[in-house]
């Protein structure tokens, strides 16, 4: 008797009893949601929210601590830190979100191919994924950027490549499990072709864990970008990437710690927000927990 992995039940995203509602009911979920949405809003509406132009210099007031006019202080060129951080959020999300999404798409394609086709294709994909994951990401990033030159686009590329194996693995594992399920066989019995089965029946059922991974990966991607910019091989100044702000502030940290503190704080908050969101999402979507709450299934 074959044991089939129970296929995931579809859940509504909005509305009562839905993912969003359950997420908001938990404190970590709510906090995560608020932070992430707040961040997104700030990033999108940066020109409206930021008190100053992020590039406006005011040498007279350089390296000042928090004050009434500059809530988070100023940097070595007198630029308002709060504004720079706000515009920096734009840069960070503008890099991290597309990059991780690209990683998801790439990983999904490779993982589904490997899982569904098996055999040589599977082996090939695994070899490639293992190779990428074998490199310490920083080294890989530095190498690629040294070869291609430092720029926003290349940072995006690097992040997409280094993060894709995770998605590939999750996608592959999900497809392997799902392949055993009778409904795949049933569709084949009707004459469905493999592309159709993949698109209509397999793909929708494997996306959930990938989205959660996406949420969890965004802070990592931001950290990678910040790190690269800090080292000078990513986004170049004067673009206010948080890494750039950190790098500039680092040189003068003894005299004026505020750039580091403020930017560091922003990074911590962002990471916290996304992580709380991602982890709570994962708990909420877990089918085992749902079953107890919903009560018994209809009988006969």
């Amino acid at each position, binding site marked *: *008797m074959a044991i*089939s992995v*129970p*296929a*995931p*039940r*579809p859940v509504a995203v909005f509305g009562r009893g839905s993912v969003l509602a359950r997420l908001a009911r938990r404190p970590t979920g709510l906090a995560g949601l608020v932070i992430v949405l707040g961040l997104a809003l700030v990033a999108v509406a940066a020109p409206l929210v930021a008190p100053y132009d992020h590039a406006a210099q005011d040498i007279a007031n350089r390296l000042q601590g928090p004050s009434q006019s500059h809530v988070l202080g100023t940097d070595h060129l007198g630029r308002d830190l709060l504004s720079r951080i706000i515009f920096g959020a734009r840069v960070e999300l503008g890099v991290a979100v597309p990059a991780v999404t690209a990683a998801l798409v790439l990983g999904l394609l490779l993982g589904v191919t490997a899982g569904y086709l098996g055999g040589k294709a599977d082996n090939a994909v695994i070899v490639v994924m293992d190779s990428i994951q074998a490199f310490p990401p920083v080294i890989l990033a530095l190498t690629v950027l040294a070869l291609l030159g430092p720029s926003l686009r290349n940072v995006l590329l690097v992040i997409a490549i280094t993060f894709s194996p995770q998605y590939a693995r999750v996608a592959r594992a999900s497809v392997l499990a799902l392949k055993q*399920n*009778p*409904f795949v*066989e*049933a*569709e*084949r*019995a*009707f*004459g*469905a*072709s493999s592309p*159709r089965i993949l698109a*209509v*029946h397999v793909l*929708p*059922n494997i996306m959930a864990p990938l989205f959660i991974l996406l949420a969890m990966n965004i802070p990592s991607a931001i950290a990678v970008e910040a790190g690269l910019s800090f080292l000078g091989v990513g986004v170049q100044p004067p673009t206010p990437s948080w890494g750039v702000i950190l790098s500039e502030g680092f040189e003068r940290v003894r005299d004026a710690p505020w750039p580091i503190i403020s930017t560091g704080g922003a990074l911590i908050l962002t990471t916290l927000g996304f992580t709380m969101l991602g982890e709570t999402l994962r708990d909420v979507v877990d089918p085992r927990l749902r079953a107890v709450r919903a009560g018994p*299934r*209809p*009988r*006969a």
Partner: protein
Amino acid sequence: MSDVLVDVRGLRTWFFGRRWWFERFLEREVGAVRAIDGVDLEIRRGETLGLVGESGSGKTTLGKVILRLAPVTEGEIIFDGSDITGLRGAGLRRLRSRMQMIFQDPHSSLSPRLRIAYLLMEPYRINDVPREERYTVDELLEMVELSSELASKYPHELSGGQARRVGIARALALRPEFLVADEPTAGLDVSAGAKILNLMRDLQARLQLTYLVITHNLSIVDYVADRLAVMYLGKLFEVGPTDRVLDAPAHPYTHALLSAVSEPDPRLRRGRARLLPPGEIPSPRNPPPGCRFHTRCAFAEERSRIEVPALEEIEPGHLVACHFWPKVRTELADSAARARGYR
């Protein structure tokens, strides 16, 4: 038009598992799971054939192989006169509309993220069936006695019995002639199961269907099948009209199955134990030589280990593969009668 709809000849299906490329050259057969190991079977138009066996017997695989959902290692399958063993592509797709399967687990054979209405129309979409030739969603639901309000629901919102009916409706969408039903009442309560069996009977009469019912449950087969085939470790042990096979079984394994069935009648308890074969079913990777049942059979002799018994006809339409069938029949006749509730 021939009487025989499905004719299986010399069928073998062995699953080899992952082999290194060079093992293919060496033709390594050791360790292969011999799911079907030499089966000849006929299914006649309009009948219900019950295929009975326990785990590892290969019965589900046989059903799938006939529908070309599982591979053939050796042998032929003839459907309505044509050899379908090597069919592929467009020819195979045309075939699919003539034979369908009702799967064992009602819920997991329905794609979870799609609504029932979509699932019911899938076969038409896949096969580009023109609108005039399609049943509507309501018609399909009505055929299996389900209300139209189920059309907008998801599979997990349905009960086991409802999900199974949806599976039947889907199988009927392409107007097949031949249906393979895998454990039609598994997981269902007694009354839900009874309803499914009744439904299947009605549909058979209305739509002139031929059924292959695969099950380990002898009482279903007793009720619903015209003929019966008993399978063990990839081979058929006994085939014949249900009444004859169950009233006067000629194979020790059939006797064992009968005596093991828990009939809902406590008076049938006495003296059944001695017919139970000791031990468990051997692994299909390594079936016993000679007669496959000899390791557990009370009648086994030296010959059983060496010679594979062939299916021979002992009365019209009733075949058995046993070296000692006359002895088996006479010695166990009494208990067979008791097993079926004759006092």
